[in-house]
């Protein structure tokens, strides 16, 4: 039974969302303020947080940042205004996905399911056997595709589910260019016309956590007007290999 922490100040919305999610089989706990939400995070240990950005007192944005300093639990933010800047700032603060209020229960539920699948369901062909890849100079970046951990110079890098899934997806085919829409489908399970800002914000966060300088990123490179690709870094052999050309991506579903 997935455990959902709903941080939302309006009582009617609390009730409605709790009722709807509970019927979908979620274990829902409600917090009315940001402070209460942070406290519940430690006691309730939710699988996913649904966070209203418009909170009295401690703002939703600040709550998001504080959660991220100690926890990589998936966060879905609910923005009341749907303002573009709100969404971008929220995503950069570390939210994994967003919904715009008013949202129908089944849409929210689908987003929760998707984000939960991300936690455990990264592409993992070899089951539980550790499969560690190294990238970069002297193999400073280590990705364990089975154990779902990432370490840089031997130090584990805590990644939120979206970030991890994005990194695994990109690094599965080094050199291949993925369009934002492809990544939205692969990582967020969004419909084709999803919001590419999710991808951009996630890439930004991922680069920061991996110590990849934004001006001259080593690992996750921007292909302007096209998307992103993972570059294995400065391994001596990688250079001479011909780079695969971007493939026209057509997902006929």
């Amino acid at each position, binding site marked *: 039974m997935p455990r959902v922490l709903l941080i939302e100040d309006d009582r009617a919305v609390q009730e409605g969302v709790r009722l709807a999610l509970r019927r979908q089989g979620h274990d829902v706990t409600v917090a009315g303020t940001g402070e209460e939400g942070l406290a519940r995070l430690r006691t309730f240990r939710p699988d996913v947080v649904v966070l209203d950005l418009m909170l009295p007192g401690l703002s939703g944005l600040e709550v998001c940042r504080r959660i991220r300093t100690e926890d990589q639990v998936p966060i879905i933010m609910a923005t009341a205004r749907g303002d573009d800047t709100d969404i971008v700032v929220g995503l950069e603060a570390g939210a994994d996905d967003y919904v715009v209020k*008013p949202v129908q229960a089944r849409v929210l539920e689908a987003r929760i399911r998707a984000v939960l699948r991300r936690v455990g369901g990264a592409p993992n062909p070899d089951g539980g056997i550790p499969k560690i890849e190294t990238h970069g100079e002297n193999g400073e970046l280590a990705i364990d595709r089975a154990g779902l951990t990432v370490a840089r110079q031997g130090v584990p890098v805590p990644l939120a589910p979206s970030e991890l899934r994005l990194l695994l997806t990109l690094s599965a085919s080094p050199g291949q260019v993925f369009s934002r*829409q492809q990544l939205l489908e692969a990582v967020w399970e969004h419909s084709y016309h999803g919001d590419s800002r999710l991808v951009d914000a996630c890439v930004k966060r991922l680069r920061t956590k991996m110590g990849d300088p934004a001006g001259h990123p080593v690992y996750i490179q921007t292909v302007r*007007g096209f998307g992103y690709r993972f570059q294995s870094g400065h391994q001596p052999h990688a250079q001479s290999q011909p780079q695969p050309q971007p493939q026209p991506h057509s997902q006929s579903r």
Partner: protein
Amino acid sequence: MKSPLRGLRGRLLVAFVLVAALATLTTGALTFREARTGVLQQSQDNVIKRLRDHVNSFAAEISYPPTQPDLEWVAAQVSRAEPTQNWRVLATYRDLRATSTPQDGFTELSPAMRSAVGSRRAAVFQRVTTKGRSSLVVGMPVTFGSPGDRPASGVAVFLTVPQTGEQGYVDALVTAIGRAVLPALGLAVLLALLAARGVLRPVRELRRATRSIAEGHLDTRLAVNGSDELADLSHTFNETAAALEESVAELRRMEARARRFVADVSHELRTPLAAMSAVTDVLDEDADRLDGDTATAVRLISSETVKLTRLVDDLMEISRFDAGAAGLQLDDLDLAECLRHTLAARAWLDTVDSAGLPAPGELRGRADPRRLDVVVANLVGNALRHGARPVQLRLYARESPGADRVAVIEVLDSGSGIPADVLPHVFDRFYKSDTARTRSEGSGLGLSIAAENVRLHGGTVRAANRDANREGNREKGGGAVFTVEIPLPHDADPNQEQQQEQEQQKKKEMEKEGEKA
């Protein structure tokens, strides 16, 4: 361009020059006439007076009737008395002639003058010009002594004086006047330019300010200098501009208030709607278990909540456009795939004819996928609701030389078309073409939102009716067609771009290698 002479400056210049020329020439002509007359009159009076003096003194010394030597002596004496004046003298008595210079034909003397001297007993003079040289001819009869009765002696003395000195004076006068005209005209031009500048500067300022206002800079004001008519005009201009600025600001305030109100209302509606829409699924699921009336009521609440949610969503979207807060999130897209997914996401693949979409990979371009989806979904949804099926969705690129490539999206239905009086209003907010149908499934904002989204892409959208004859393939004809045109800027070839990036990357790597070595 207007001709330079028709401008205010040109007209002022011409006027000043004309006035100056007229004034100088008139003054010159009058001065010339007076001066000339004065000079000639004086010299002629002087000559006559001196001739009379000489004739009086010499004619008294000859005997009467005079002989040829007498006449010669008189002529020579009179001529010699004024040695500097080049006097040529002729003395006559009946048929006798004697000249001061031998063999002098005295051609200047006209017969009329001779007879006049003979009959009038007074000095007669005439100005004669021969071969460009003017001279004064004076004739004087010699009369005898006693006043009152002065019988003529029959002797007449004629004198010819060349008037070169006087001619020189007059010529100098003409030259002087001519020389005065040129500086006067120059001065007139200068004054005209100065005056034009004085008048034109405020006029130019006024023109600049008017243009500035027209460009929307309503805070434009003029500096008011002096108290002439132009200063008055500037003052009036400032007052008008201030009034205009104030009323525009007031209008903007009112408009902003109205927009904010819509945004606020929509926002306030969101929270209760968020609670309601969270539970509509619950209502739908449980309605089956309720009895008839309650089930109907519950379903009604559920479906209307969904509609209300969409309406508020649309209102929020429109207020974002009104507030200028809508931004594009451009991404490189396969446009046909994007359109297919729009149909698929709404389960329209079977109801909408999408044969007119290019194959995957054929048409790529930069667009905002979410907004493109909204545009196509609203247009197709509108066609399905208000037009008859089949509804067709087409997409193609139109190349135009010298301009950006344009992606053309067409949504065609097979209904009866849009009435001509409705056509200009289809993109208006809440415009209902059929007054009987007071409410439809849509929010009434769908087409406006589609249009705003297209405009945000720098494109155009228009509605028209299909020409049944031209289409040819359909017997009942008509039907509406909505055409969206979105410019696709020529972007660098992504492959090429990637290659460039790779080259840069390689260069960087080589530099690093170099550093290591």
